[in-house]
Structure formats: C-alpha cells, structure tokens
C-alpha cells in the first residue's frame, strides 16, 4: 500500500498538479510574510534603547509601506489563484469518458454512460479510469448533500439533490487513489469512501468488458444454495445481481462485487472474513448504515459468501 | 481648587427625533426588521429565478383585497402624522384623539388582511412559491399586529396611566414605527401581487 494514497500534495493528474503548484506558491509566500512580521514584532518588543524612539512620521511611512507591499503581494496571489482556476477548468473534450455518480447515504452509485444502454456498466464505490483520458463525472445525489473528493486527482465537488454538478478530471500516472465524501452527510459520513483505479487503457478496456458481463452461474452446490438465498432472501430486495432475479436498486450493485477492493464503501477490505462480519451484523461494522441484519444462519452465511466470491 | 463644571440641570428632560435615545432604539429595530424583510424578498427573487414559470402552477393572488389594504394603509399615514405632531407639541387631547383614529385604521387593516390571506390562491405547503408568499405576508402581518397592540397599550396609557414626558416621545416613536410598517408594505405588496403578473 503506498505511503500516502489520499493526499492533495501528491498530484496524479493535471488539475491536482496545478492546484499543488498554487499551494506551494501560497505556502512559501505566506511563510515568508509570517517570518518577517513576527521578526518585526520581536524586534519591536525587545528594543530597549528608548533614546532612538522613531518619530510618528517615520512610523507612518513604514506602516504605509508595509500596507502597500501587502496589497501588492495579495494582488499577486489573487492573480495566481484565478489563473490556476482558469487552468483547472480547461478540460472539456468531446470524446471524454462519461461517468454518472450518485451519492447515497453512505455509498457511491457509479454508472458508466454509453449511448447503447446494454453497454452501460453499473458498479459501486470503485471507479476504474484509463490513464491520460479526460473523464467527465456527472454528480447527483439521491438524498442529502455529499461531496466527491479524490485529492490526488482534483479538488472536491458537491453532489446536491435536485442539481447535477460536473467534475472534469484526468489521471496521468496509473495507481490506486482513495477518495472520501467531504460534506457531512449524516451518521456514517466517516465511512463513505471510494476507490479510483487509474490504469492503462488496455487494462481499462479489459475491466469494462468484464463488468458488462452478467454474473457467472454458480458451479458448486454450496454456491447454488448461496444464490437461492440471495434471490429469495432479503438481499434481492435492495441489491442487484445482473443475470439473476435479484434486481434491487436501492443498494450497491453486486454483479461483480468480488472484483472490488473494499466493502461497505471503504469501511473494510473485501476479504471473506470481513464480508462475513459485514453480512452477519452490518450495524456492528457500520452503525447506522442502511443495511439491516440479515439474520442468516451460519450455514446460510457461508453459502452466500461462497456465491459472492464467484461474482468476478 | 474646585474644578470647572458644565451645568446640565437646565437641559430639557426629553427630546424628539434623532435627539432622543428612543428614536435610535426604534431606528436600530427598524434596521433589523428591514434586514429580515430584505432577506425574505431576496429569497423570493432567488426562488423565482430557480423556477421556469412564475407563479409555478397557480393563479396569481387576487388584486382586490391587497390593493384595498394598500389604500387603507397609505390613508392611515394621515392620522399617524397628526398624532406624531400632537405628541411633539405635548398636546395630550389631540394626541389621544389621533391615536384612537390611527388605531381604528390599524384594526381595519388587520381585518382586511384576513381576506388577503384567503385570496392568495395558493397554500403555504403547496410549493416554495406558496411558502415564500405566505411567509412574506405573515411576517408583515406580525409587524402589523404588534404595532397595533403597541398603539393600543400606549393609547390606554395616555387615558388612564400616570402622565410622563416619555409617553409623548413613545407616541412619536410609535408613529415612526407605523410609517415603517407602511413603507415595508409597499415592496411586499409589489412582490406578492405584481411580480407574479409581470413574469
């Protein structure tokens, strides 16, 4: 796992890069100002030679000069900030990859747009994007205000009910970048993360092809039993598994859940153990989450896990 | 040596207009109330800007009662003016008279206001338009009622209460506040009754 994988200071795309340039400019300028002002203050209070008491005229000149310099510096920073804003907003290619993201309490619903509906891909809490290609992200919310933020790629943009916000971004180096909801959205705001996987366009094409497939049929009896529970049990009421009768729409799409790195919107790694804990008692891992306890028996649970692991 | 002194014993014990602290108290109050009206009107404009049609899905309010009320309100400025003048002349009898007349206007206004609410053609919970219209009208009504009550108490005081200079300044400030209620009504009227017709 990389040292810092959710950081505004490690840009992996043009926007994050120009913002971090602005940051360093501001940082050094402000540090210099701080040092100078505090130095002046310390000199002022440590002066003991009262005979060299400056005249009010001298003081006036120095204060006015300082104020003038401040104004000049601030105009510089203002210009830099607006110029950066212009650069950051410069994306907007027609052949961009269009992704719809809808915020829910507390997970991300992801749809890869495509003119032909059958080629659309639905997934949740994990995006794959091709390196070097512009991405047009269309942000909506189904309930309250959320905010989409992947600091290594770009600043944040809110998801506001009744509106659609646009966020253009682009990844320059392959890698896994974590993002997190940045607008307080209720009891589980802390556990509403998403993963962005930036990969070569070949890998991306391979991934999207796989995602377009329906769920593979279960092979072992245990897996078949698991599928039955998923279809007849409580799961299907909220979750969708394409290729089965499970067609719920109010919770993350599980068609290829086994390919994702985390569960419960970044609350835990996607391993059999955690998955078992999550299904057995969601309210323990993520108190207040919308997923109710399923009340499966141990044996049923194992079956479901066995089936879910086939959803690659 | 004994210090020099400024003798203020001969200064009057009351003053009118911006000399009196009551005036400034009233002015600050009006600043705040005015800011609230402004905020509600800004909200109205904002919601109007967000909506493709205005009024969205409903008929504009009926003009009659609101317009009638505007006339009554403007007319009420007259007795109000005389009351203020009488107060500043410390003329108790006339003050009592005009306060009563102004009070009648005020009550009449409140009564007509009831019909206004009934002629809005929309409910507060129908949509955002209904909400903001009802709130604007309700907020102005609140001021109306409080000022009418205020005048009533003051008038009662002028008849039965122990007489004080402050009653005259209070009456003068009360008159000023009534002007405020009159003046705030004009934009409120314009937005509730005219804006939907312009759109």
């Amino acid at each position, binding site marked *: 796992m990389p040292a810092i994988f959710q950081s505004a200071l490690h840009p992996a795309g043009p926007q994050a890069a120009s913002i971090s340039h602005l940051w360093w400019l501001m940082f050094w300028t402000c540090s210099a100002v701080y040092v100078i002002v505090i130095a002046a203050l310390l000199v002022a209070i440590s002066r003991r030679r009262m005979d060299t008491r400056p005249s009010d005229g001298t003081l006036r000149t120095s204060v006015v000069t300082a104020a003038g310099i401040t*104004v000049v510096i*601030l*105009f510089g920073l*203002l*210009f830099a900030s*607006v*110029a950066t*804003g*212009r650069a950051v*907003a410069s994306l907007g290619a027609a052949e961009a990859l269009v992704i719809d993201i809808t915020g829910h309490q507390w997970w991300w619903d992801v749809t890869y747009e495509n003119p032909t509906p059958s080629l659309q891909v639905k997934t949740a809490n994990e995006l794959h994007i091709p390196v070097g290609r512009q991405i047009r992200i269309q942000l909506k919310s189904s309930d309250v205000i959320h905010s989409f933020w992947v600091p290594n790629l770009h600043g944040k943009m809110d998801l506001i009910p009744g509106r659609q916000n646009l966020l253009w971004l682009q990844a320059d180096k392959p890698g896994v970048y974590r993002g997190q909801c940045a607008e307080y959205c209720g009891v589980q705001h802390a556990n509403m993360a998403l993963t962005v996987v930036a990969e070569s366009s070949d890998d991306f094409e391979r991934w999207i092809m796989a995602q377009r497939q329906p769920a593979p049929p279960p092979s072992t009896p245990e897996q078949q039993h698991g599928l039955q529970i998923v279809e007849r049990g409580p799961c299907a009421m909220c979750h969708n598994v394409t290729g089965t009768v499970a067609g719920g729409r109010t919770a993350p799409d599980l068609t290829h859940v086994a390919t994702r790195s985390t569960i419960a919107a970044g609350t835990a790694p996607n391993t059999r153990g955690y998955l078992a804990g999550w299904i057995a008692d969601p309210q323990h891992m993520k108190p207040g989450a919308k997923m109710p306890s399923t009340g499966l028996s141990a044996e049923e649970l194992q079956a479901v896990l066995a089936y879910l692991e086939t959803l690659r | 040596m004994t210090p*020099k002194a*400024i003798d*203020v014993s001969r200064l009057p014990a009351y003053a009118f207009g911006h000399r009196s602290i009551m005036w400034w108290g009233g002015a600050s109050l009006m600043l705040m109330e005015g800011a609230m009206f402004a905020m509600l009107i800004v909200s109205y404009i904002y919601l109007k800007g967000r909506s493709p049609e205005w009024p969205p899905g409903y008929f504009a309010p009926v003009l009659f009662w609101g317009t009638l009320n505007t006339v009554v309100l403007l007319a009420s400025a007259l007795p109000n003016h005389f009351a203020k003048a009488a107060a500043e002349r410390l003329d108790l009898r006339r003050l009592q008279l005009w306060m009563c007349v102004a009070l009648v206007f005020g009550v009449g206004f409140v009564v007509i206001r009831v019909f206004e609410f009934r002629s809005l053609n929309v409910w507060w919970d129908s949509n955002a338009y209904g909400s903001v219209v009802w709130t604007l009208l309700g907020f102005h009504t609140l001021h109306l009622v409080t000022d009418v009550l205020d005048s009533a108490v003051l008038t009662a005081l002028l008849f039965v209460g122990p007489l004080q200079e402050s009653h005259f300044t209070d009456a003068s400030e009360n008159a000023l506040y009534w002007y405020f209620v009159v003046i705030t009504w004009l934009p409120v009227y314009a937005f509730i009754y005219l804006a939907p017709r312009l759109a």
Partner: protein
Amino acid sequence: MPSSTSRPVSHERWRLAAVWAGLLAGPLAWLTLLEVNYLFAYVACEVQRTWFMHLATAAALIVVAAAGFAAWRASHGDMTTDETLTHPLSDETRMQRSRWMSLAGVAFSIWFIVVILAMEVPIVVLKECQ
C-alpha cells in the same frame, strides 16, 4: 484658530453631506458592484462578452473617486461657530472631528478604489463560462 469666520448654515450642510459621501460611497459602491458582477457573470456566459462588467467597474470607480474628492474638499475651509454650545472646547472639538471625518472619507475612498480594482482581476483572467 480660525473658528469665527461666519458662513451660511447651508455650507455646513454641504460639508456634512460631502463627509458622509466620502465614508459611505466606497463600501456601498463596492457591495453593489459585487452583487452586479455576480449576476453579470451569468449574462457574460450567455452573450460571451464582458465589456459591460468593465463598464460597471469604471462606474463604481468614478462614483468613489468623486466622493473621495468631495470629502477632501470638505477637509479644507473654516467652520462657523455655534453660540448655543455649552461645552468649553466645543468649537475646537467640532472642527477636529469634522476634519477627522473628512480625512477618513478620503482614506476610505482610496482604499475601496483598490478593492474595486481587485474585482477586475477575475474579469480579465477568466473565460466567460468558467
């Protein structure tokens, strides 16, 4: 101290008006410009033009400069005495205060001219629809 040169009261009124203009024109012009620019930003995106925004800035600048000049004028010239005053140093007090307010008006106008100029930066740098 040049306090007893008698002037008509209207002159004092003018001075007072000039002083308050100097104090209020700056902030009010700027606040108005801020709101106007905010609305014009949408218009600019539709018509792909920004000249009217520069115009608004210019108008604001002219207003503030004029007010500042008036305040500066007001800081000069004598003041009439007022015999009804009871305080020993009233005249001097009044004159100092009046001069101080005029100066404040001038300084305030200059400062808000700077702020209004800062509002130009986005108009110059940004594209209409960003």
